[in-house]
């Protein structure tokens, strides 16, 4: 009846505010007086509290706009043509409109994570109570919620504390969203500052979601040795009834595992997942399997393996019901976010629902109770499996060849394909019996299905592609380390110094969706490269799956080859999308645990620290969603650069530094207060790379930080130069900007580089103790 669980009923209470009667009180804000850390200047920051910090960042990394459309169509004053410096009917210009759309995307992204967190926390509070303690890593993790502490000034201890923080997040998102209304914010940089607020809020929302599920479901707790679990299409046993779970909200999938367990059915049924629910269900039980990232949805359904689809929220194909119908598999929708027009059967008896699904009376149902989903899904799968006999809609090769002959080479499919796949050529070959070109497309296809809708012959093109890749698909059988969750404090202590001095050359995080320009192998290749080079490589979400989908000559996939600990040469899968804050959190914890800076409500100082000292880079090679936008924004506000793939240019604007403008790169030397040239490090904040080769060179470069010591800088430079030589065939032309003293030069390259430096008229310069905040100078000075 009430939205929140209520803790206290008080018949009459006297306080300094007078007498209150017949009230119930719920725990509001916990002012944790046992936390001795001084509170910083910006706990629970409003949408303007960090605006000054944002403007500093945005001066260095100015938006470069690439409008996705000449128009604004957001209100009925429009459409307005904003091209070529025109303003819309509300007075808005193109710059502001582009940033406004970015803000809208970031709000949608942040809302998605926060709403997910809210849903989880509400359900878990109902189940476990407000006072259920949070535990994400036992004694190994003292700083249990670095992002939340940093932003809110709160140290959450229980589920109830999360509830309070969520109130703050929702308020912020609401304010930010409101700023996108026609006639509100008019300035592009102020829109960008709000984007950064949305990103910051998003990080807290994700952190809360993951803390809640890690604590309540017993996921691996900051465990570098989280179990290796099965990954890939080939891991699914085609002889068993199969339940396919898709989405991001794990409780329905847990409902399934629990029911299986209770009934002793484990082993009789395969439960396999796509997207983040897959990550999270394997964190719950290593018996579950991961099929793959979002782009595997169509191919997996059409393969006929799933006997029932259980979809929850986020990253669900909107046509899942139609696709499930095609293979005669029923569907259970389990989230109020995605009801798919289905009847709400939450309150109906299980027998009736199962009966309706098995008999085909209904194609699908909506069930908003995760436990009921569990029972219905399992029972339905058991009964449906023998009836549908893995009915699939992938054609036979001989039919494919016959049909392909009829292709009239109209190019419609290719022109609809987001990645411009040369389908017509592949059809010609296929018509001649040669499927290799189609098979090549299988490896690059992101499974969107757009080609099929435009074919005048109505070829099931995607199914053709899947058929061509079938052999490969069935061999896809890999291992992935289940999401470990947070980074341990002890790990941070170990790597803190080498990271901030640059001796560990960087923390490289591969995150986000699978909308890759040329298939997932590029991600896997990049990951290997940096793991081999002994960077710390972190993964999450769909990218973490792609990372596992290669094998070396010994048949080992990367997670088997590289250890899961947060250290040089480690390959660290933190988990699902909501586990992303463990990455930002690690950077923050370096400041707090290693450098002993105050976290609590002290955002600017910590961001300044991270930006100038922690050589971290995020790569979202396939980023496509609004969540990706908000996740990236959360990194930006901390000053951590993010690289996206070429289609990432569709995010409408980059945040680019200009290394050729010397004046942009001055920092304060906090020892002296002097303004010192710190070099373009990192050069960009948000940046779309055209190819993986370009990305790899840029990753190495973006790991440099003004604070690197000479040893660290030399190591970083050697990686940068090495990759540059390998992929570009030349020395980089900007080394002089990064060499501060002769000792920065990698020894093996000394002569070559010194020659270049001489040509450029290079002079030795100071290595500052860098900060963008004047007050940090005073602070240091005062300490003396």
């Amino acid at each position, binding site marked *: 009846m009430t939205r929140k669980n209520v803790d206290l009923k008080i018949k009459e209470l006297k306080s300094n505010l007078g007498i209150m009667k017949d009230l119930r009180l719920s725990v509001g804000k916990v002012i944790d007086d046992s936390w001795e850390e001084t509170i910083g200047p910006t706990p629970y920051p409003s949408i303007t509290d960090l605006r000054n910090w944002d403007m500093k960042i945005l001066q260095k990394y100015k938006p470069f706009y690439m409008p996705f459309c000449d128009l604004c169509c957001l209100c009925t004053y429009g459409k307005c043509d904003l091209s070529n410096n025109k303003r819309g009917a509300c007075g808005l210009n193109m710059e502001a409109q582009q940033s406004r759309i970015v803000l809208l995307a970031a709000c949608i992204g942040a809302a998605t994570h926060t709403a997910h967190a809210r849903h989880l926390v509400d359900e878990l509070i109902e189940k476990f109570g407000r006072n259920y303690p949070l535990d994400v890593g036992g004694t190994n993790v003292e700083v249990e919620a670095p992002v939340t502490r940093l932003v809110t000034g709160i140290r959450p201890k229980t589920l109830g504390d999360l509830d309070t923080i969520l109130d703050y997040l929702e308020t912020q998102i609401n304010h930010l969203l409101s700023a996108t209304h026609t006639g509100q914010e008019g300035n592009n940089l102020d829109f960008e500052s709000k984007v950064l607020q949305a990103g910051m809020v998003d990080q807290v929302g994700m952190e809360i979601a993951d803390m809640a599920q890690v604590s309540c479901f017993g996921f691996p707790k900051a465990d570098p040795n989280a179990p290796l679990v099965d990954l890939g299409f080939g891991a699914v046993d085609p002889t068993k009834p199969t339940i396919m779970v898709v989405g991001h909200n794990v409780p329905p999938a847990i409902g399934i595992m629990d029911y299986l367990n209770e009934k002793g059915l484990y082993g009789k049924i395969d439960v396999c997942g796509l997207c983040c629910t897959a990550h999270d269900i394997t964190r719950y039980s290593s018996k579950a399997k991961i099929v793959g990232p979002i782009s595997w949805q169509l191919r997996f359904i059409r393969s006929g393996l799933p006997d029932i689809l259980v979809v929850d929220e986020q990253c669900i194909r909107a046509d899942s019901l139609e696709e499930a119908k095609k293979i005669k598999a029923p569907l259970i929708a389990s989230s109020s976010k995605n009801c798919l027009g289905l009847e709400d059967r939450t309150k109906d008896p299980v027998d009736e629902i199962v009966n309706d699904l098995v008999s085909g009376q209904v194609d699908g149902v909506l069930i908003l109770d995760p436990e009921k989903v569990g029972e219905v899904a399992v029972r339905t799968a058991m009964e449906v499996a023998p009836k549908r006999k893995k009915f699939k809609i992938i054609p036979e090769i001989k039919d494919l060849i016959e049909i392909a002959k009829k292709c009239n080479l109209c190019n419609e499919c290719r022109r609809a394909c987001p990645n411009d796949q040369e389908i017509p050529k592949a059809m010609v070959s296929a018509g001649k019996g040669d499927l290799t070109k189609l098979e090549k497309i299988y490896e690059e296809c992101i499974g969107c299905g757009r080609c099929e809708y435009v074919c005048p012959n109505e070829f099931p093109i995607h199914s053709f592609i899947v058929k061509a890749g079938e052999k490969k698909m069935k061999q896809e059988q890999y291992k992935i380390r289940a999401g470990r969750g947070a980074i341990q404090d002890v790990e941070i202590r170990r790597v803190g110094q080498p990271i901030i001095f640059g001796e560990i050359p960087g923390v490289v995080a591969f995150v986000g969706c699978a909308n890759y320009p040329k298939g997932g192998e590029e991600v896997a290749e990049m990951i290997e490269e940096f793991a081999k080079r002994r960077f710390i490589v972190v993964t999450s979400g769909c990218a973490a799956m792609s990372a596992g989908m290669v094998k070396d000559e010994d048949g080992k996939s990367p997670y088997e080859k590289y250890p899961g600990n947060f250290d040089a040469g480690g390959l660290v899968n933190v988990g699902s999308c909501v586990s992303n804050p463990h990455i930002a959190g690690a950077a923050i914890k370096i400041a707090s645990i290693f450098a002993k800076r105050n976290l609590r409500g002290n955002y600017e100082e910590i961001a300044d620290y991270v930006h100038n000292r922690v050589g971290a880079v995020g790569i979202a090679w396939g980023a496509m969603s609004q969540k990706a936008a908000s996740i990236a924004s959360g990194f930006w506000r901390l000053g951590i650069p993010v690289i996206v793939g070429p289609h990432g240019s569709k995010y409408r604007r980059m945040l680019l530094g200009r290394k050729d403008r010397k004046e942009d790169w001055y920092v304060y030397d906090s020892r002296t207060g002097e303004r010192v040239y710190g070099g373009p490090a990192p050069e960009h904040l948000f940046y779309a790379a055209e190819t993986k080769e370009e990305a790899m060179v840029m990753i190495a470069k973006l790991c440099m930080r003004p604070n690197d010591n000479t040893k660290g800088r030399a190591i970083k430079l050697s990686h940068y130069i090495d990759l540059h030589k390998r*992929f570009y065939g030349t020395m980089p032309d900007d080394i002089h900007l990064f060499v501060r003293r002769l000792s920065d030069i990698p020894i093996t390259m000394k002569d070559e580089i010194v020659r270049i430096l001489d040509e450029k008229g290079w002079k030795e310069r100071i290595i500052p103790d860098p900060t963008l905040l004047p007050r940090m100078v005073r602070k240091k000075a005062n300490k003396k």
Partner: protein
Amino acid sequence: MSDAPWQKAEVAGTKRALPLVKPEVVLAMLKRSKHPILVVGHKIVEIDLDGKKLIDFVIDIAKAGEIPIVATAHSVKEFLNREFQSVASMPVMDVANRLTDPEWKGLDGKGTYDLAFFIGLPYYMEWLILSGLKNFSGNLQTISLDGFYQPNATWSIPNISSKELREFFEALILKLGGQ
């Protein structure tokens, strides 16, 4: 031949590129230009026009027209492999961003560019970059040479077959005085 956007959903806005069908147009534009540049993406190595790689056409055009090249992504390596040295290298986002800055001194220090050719980028990426330049780069004229119609350029070769594109380049190189 069609001047609908190659990727169908990348529709044109209120202003669309003029279709570039005659090499003469390029000549005329070059003649008027004080400072042209040729932006070359990584696909020039992948694309083959009946036995001759796009990069080799590009080299011929650049030589004949004396147009400086900036190679984006890792394509510079291929130029060097072909012992073509007068090529700058820069990520395409940096090139594009600088092209909107009227105070940028150019890769050669000679000041702002007034004409930019584009070739060999992923279609949608070029679409977006040309959109950025159309909106925020006042006096720059842009020409897309891919043979896939780019509505946001000032001029674009329309959607033509690789045979037609080859013929276009051959004619262009001849007219520019190359062989």
